[in-house]
């Protein structure tokens, strides 16, 4: 008997193993839905798959009568734009601030506590303030994402920078590097893979904040739609929308993972599997 830790499934086995849990979940849902429908034919909570499919196809392919737009497409585009702006700004801010905090002891001392405190402020709680400062337009939605997502990126990037062996920073200086060129040529390239990893980790929270912002003030977007129909518990809309959001997030995650592995192959050589 080999030790469990040494049992490595082959390619086919891994694929199979990855799929099985999803199949189980799907089966549980179908059974639960059927049961509730049997008890109450009007049950809205766990609509059967057929009903969700019908709703989805209506939202994804038929233009809305009033606006003439295809609802799902319009919602997705609106949300993705906000998400991209929010995540983009947050990533940029996170990188710049994180590197500054990590490389420059003076900035680290001055900003470290501030960032630590800011990252602890629950963004939802200050949402009313944000809306009042930035209005109810696109800006406040993007800002909420930035406020929610940037602080953890800043803190983690700062930590990543500090985990670069001192030897390397010293070596760079002996090669004639200034603080700036050390950052540009030594610190930044080594931090980028982690940055992508962080963006991946923040996709979930970013969607969370996006949905929260869209729930309160918006006229389009995935979160807007979910909260609009949530009042009527229209799970036949909510569940496909949640699945769609999850799929988008998952694909984004996958793309970023691919990007990181192709752009920064050197950082992934040590991976065991």
């Amino acid at each position, binding site marked *: 008997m080999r030790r469990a830790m040494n049992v490595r499934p082959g390619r086919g086995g891994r694929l199979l193993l990855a799929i099985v849990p999803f199949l189980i979940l799907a089966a549980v849902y179908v059974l639960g839905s059927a049961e509730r429908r049997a008890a109450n034919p009007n049950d809205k909570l766990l609509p059967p798959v057929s009903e969700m499919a019908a709703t989805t196809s209506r939202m994804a392919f038929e233009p809305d009568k009033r606006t003439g737009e295809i609802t799902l497409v319009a919602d997705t585009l609106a949300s993705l734009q906000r998400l991209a702006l929010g995540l983009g700004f947050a990533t940029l801010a996170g990188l710049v601030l994180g590197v500054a905090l990590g490389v420059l002891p003076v900035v680290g001392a001055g900003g470290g506590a501030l960032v630590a405190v800011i990252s602890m402020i629950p963004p939802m709680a200050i949402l009313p303030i944000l809306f009042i400062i930035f209005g109810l337009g696109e800006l406040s939605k993007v800002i909420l994402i930035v406020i929610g997502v940037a602080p953890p990126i800043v803190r983690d990037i700062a930590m990543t920078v500090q985990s670069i062996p001192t030897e390397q920073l010293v070596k760079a200086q002996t090669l004639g590097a200034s603080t700036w060129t050390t950052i*540009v*040529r030594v610190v930044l390239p080594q931090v980028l893979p982690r940055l992508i990893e962080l963006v991946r980790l923040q996709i979930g929270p970013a969607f969370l904040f996006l949905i929260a912002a869209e729930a309160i003030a918006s006229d389009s977007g995935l979160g807007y739609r979910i909260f609009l129909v949530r009042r009527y518990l229209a799970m036949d809309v909510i569940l496909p929308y949640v699945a769609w959001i999850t799929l988008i997030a998952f694909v984004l995650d996958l793309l970023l993972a691919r990007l990181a592995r192709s752009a920064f192959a*050197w950082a992934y050589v040590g991976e065991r599997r």
Partner: protein
Amino acid sequence: MSAISVQNVWAEFGDQIVIENLNLEVASGSFLSVVGPSGCGKSTFLRMVLGQDRPSRGTLLLAGKPLPVEPDADRGVVFQRYSVFPHLTVLGNVLLAYELGQSRVLGRLFGAARRRALEKSEELVTAVGLGPHRDKHPSALSGGMQQRLAIAQALAKDPKVLLLDEPFGALDPGTRAQMHALLKPLWERLGMTVIMVTHDLKEAFNLGTRVVAFDKVRHDPQAPGRFGARVTYDLDLTRHGPVPVLGFPKKHAEAAR
């Protein structure tokens, strides 16, 4: 001129005294080998000369002036580990040495300047025997090859002072001989002052013009950190004529311990 003068230098980490009142005059252009038992503070001493650590007491002078308190291009270094950049290829690591010095804004060279630097880098990479591996990243190299790369990188800057911390510790004898053959003429030609920490007495005598041994003179078994290391042995090899190349008198080795 690049004489180094170490005056009453102490290195302490909290309670632990690592180096105790060290005094040493290193002549300009000399090749100083530092030997001593493991953990006696050789690396600590090197870091102080480099400007990375500051002595807890005492003074360090370079050519009569206080040693710059931070590392610079005048003092090259090869550490025991971590001294190559994992995100650059072999060639990129060496090229970086030229780029960092010449391009203050982007840290990158372009066009003719880059071609010139690339040529010099390739020469160095080939010289240290990494020619076939020039496009690999350090993680794909064996430990020995990584150290060779680090040496090539440090040499690229023609530093006035070169600090080596067991740079050849992980190399096999053949490559080690190649590295000696590369380093020695360079040192002679450039007039660098070299300080090399090594565990290999043969190497110490082979390359150095002077060998010093660090060790604790006093020892308190109850408190190992109570006393620090000092120079226990100091041999100027230039005075004794040619240095033995293939071996060295046994009494030297024993006296140095």
